[in-house]
């Protein structure tokens, strides 16, 4: 099987940046699903562009673009089943699309009309957007332990970045998952920059190698190679479901855009570096690969772009119609039943008895 090639030293890579297959590229997906991967990446890219535009137009608050990381997210999320549970950080809009989270609901977060759980996390099996760095990894371990106790054949997949690998919660989560043999797939999107700090200043070692110290497998994949990411994740998911415990996948990618719309990357990185990595673009690579193999034709590629255009227009129209929440939403449930003190504050803020 493909993932066996991981022992070769370099990251697992199935498709070269120019789209050339590197040996056996059969990841076990039928052609319609191979096409679906492209369709999802194109949609994610187009939506990301639109979100940047919406932010510039004042329709969204701060937005963290994922441009360049589509393969890392789509390839990994695509390897999951409906019973699995995703624990994202805050840049996983592409993964959310794969999991069927309503992008309009998701974007309530970036519109500033609600916090990180604007969609239903239980129905979508996609936990709330998580900003405190690496904290979501512990949640994933707990969910996975709970699933194991229930005897479910399901796993948790947790996303984090290279910067998060420095946090204590990353260490605690890995260690707990290992000790409990919890069915977790840790997916590090190493996009080489934690805001302005390059990964070489974040860690002196290699992130994937830490898995060995915890007592479970780790591997590095080319995070811009959607098939490699899919294959690696698929194997980790199977291991988890089979009761063999966690896996750490380091998907090496590159954040082509700013950390967020509040960030100015020209202050800390060379534009030439960005150009160099832009040449490794995950979508262009995969499209070239599929075209060369005849899995898609130009008409499909064009239809994909058109469909993305149409869907994003719909999303945009819906997002700009999201009204500012009424003041009453300040007092959305803090507890299952409000305390007397909170009830008084509600009355004080909104009028009514005691106000």
């Amino acid at each position: 099987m493909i993932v066996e090639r991981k022992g070769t030293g370099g990251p697992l890579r199935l498709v070269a940046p120019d789209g050339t297959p590197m040996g056996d590229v059969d990841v076990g997906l039928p052609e319609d699903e191979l096409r679906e991967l492209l369709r999802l990446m194109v949609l994610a890219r187009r939506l990301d562009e639109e979100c940047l535009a919406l932010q510039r137009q004042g329709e969204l608050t701060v937005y963290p673009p994922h441009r360049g990381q589509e393969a890392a997210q789509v390839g990994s999320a695509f390897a999951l089943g409906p019973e699995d549970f995703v624990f994202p950080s805050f840049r996983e809009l592409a993964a959310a699309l794969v999991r069927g989270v309503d992008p309009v609901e998701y974007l309530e977060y970036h519109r500033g009309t609600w916090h990180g759980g604007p969609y239903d996390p239980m129905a979508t099996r996609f936990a709330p957007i998580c900003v405190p760095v690496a904290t979501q990894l512990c949640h994933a371990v707990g969910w996975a332990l709970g699933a194991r106790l229930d005897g479910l054949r399901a796993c948790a997949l947790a996303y984090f970045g290279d910067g998060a690998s420095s946090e204590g919660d990353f260490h605690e989560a890995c260690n707990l998952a290992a000790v409990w043999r919890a069915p977790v797939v840790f997916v590090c999107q190493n996009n080489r920059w934690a805001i302005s700090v390059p990964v070489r200043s974040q860690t002196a070692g290699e992130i994937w190698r830490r898995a060995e110290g915890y007592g479970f497998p780790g591997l590095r994949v080319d995070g811009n190679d959607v098939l490699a990411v899919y294959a690696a994740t698929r194997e980790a998911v199977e291991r988890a479901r089979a009761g063999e415990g966690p896996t750490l996948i380091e998907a090496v990618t590159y954040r082509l855009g700013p950390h967020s719309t509040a960030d100015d990357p020209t202050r800390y990185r060379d534009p030439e570096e960005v150009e160099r990595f832009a040449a490794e673009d995950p979508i262009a690579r995969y499209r070239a690969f599929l075209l060369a193999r005849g899995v898609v034709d130009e008409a499909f590629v064009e239809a994909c772009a058109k469909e993305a255009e149409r869907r994003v227009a719909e999303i945009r129209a819906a997002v700009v119609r999201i009204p500012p929440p009424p003041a009453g939403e300040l007092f959305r449930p803090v507890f299952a039943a409000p305390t007397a003190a909170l009830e008084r504050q509600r009355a004080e803020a909104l009028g009514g008895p005691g106000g």
Partner: protein
Amino acid sequence: MVAALNAALRDALASDPRTLVMGEDVGRLGGVFRVTDGLQREFGPERVFDTPIAEAGIVGAAVGLCLAGWRPVVEMQFEGFSYPALDQVISHVAKYRYRTKGRVGLPLVIRMPFGGGIRGKEHHGESPETYYAHTAGLKVVVPSNALDAYRLLRAAIADPDPVVFLEPKARYWAKEEGILTTEGPGIGEAVVVRDGAACTIVSYGAMVHRCLEAAARLEERGIGCRVLDLRSLVPLDLGALGEAVRRTGRLVVVHEAPRTLGMGAEIAARAMEEAFDHLEAPVARVTGYDTPYPPASLEDRWLPSVERIVAAVERTVSY
């Protein structure tokens, strides 16, 4: 009280198969204070289990367990070791229901021994209740006696929201008579544990007993005190507090935690809001000092003593 807490956990584990007990040394050892003694043997290592020493990870994992439909009861071994978990508690445990528009609550209990008076080493005698009480979305519960420890812990485990459950170490070995029951006042209800007309003394946890001792001594001097055991800091029983101030016109607040921004500040402000016109003297506070918790040989000088409470009441009454 340890036996009452142990019984509460046992009965909760027996009555709801989704309840879990987890923490450092809670399994085979039964906890450093033996609160979980025998539970692993009875309910098995899947429902009562030791964790690595990783407080943030323990609480974070408990969040995930809640999402998977479990009801974890987490033990922090000492209050002074609970701080690594504060990020998980403040950023996630407290906010989950709100962040998810009310869709996802976390039925999670975080138990921890708290307070001083047992000749502990540093980090083993602290009173962190304000950190939790100040964080919107947490309930904060403090029993003062064994029967309440049982009742309140059962209520905390049954509660749909996260509860920080503070167990007064100084009362762990206190023996009391009575029948363990879930009946009686619940979370958010203060209890008048002694009545008197001259002054109200409000407290919680181990200090309630010191207040009762002070009240007995004051009675001998003809000063009758109402002693109000808060039992729960969030929600705070504003009705009972207002009623006590209206009845007695005078209020002394007693707690171990340092004075600045301690619960006494909140209680004084609430008393003023509830019943300013009934106050006949400034609200007095008898508390720990604004220093780190002192070494064992000095703790008696730091903790509110019966003498300090008596003196504060006398000052308040003669104001």
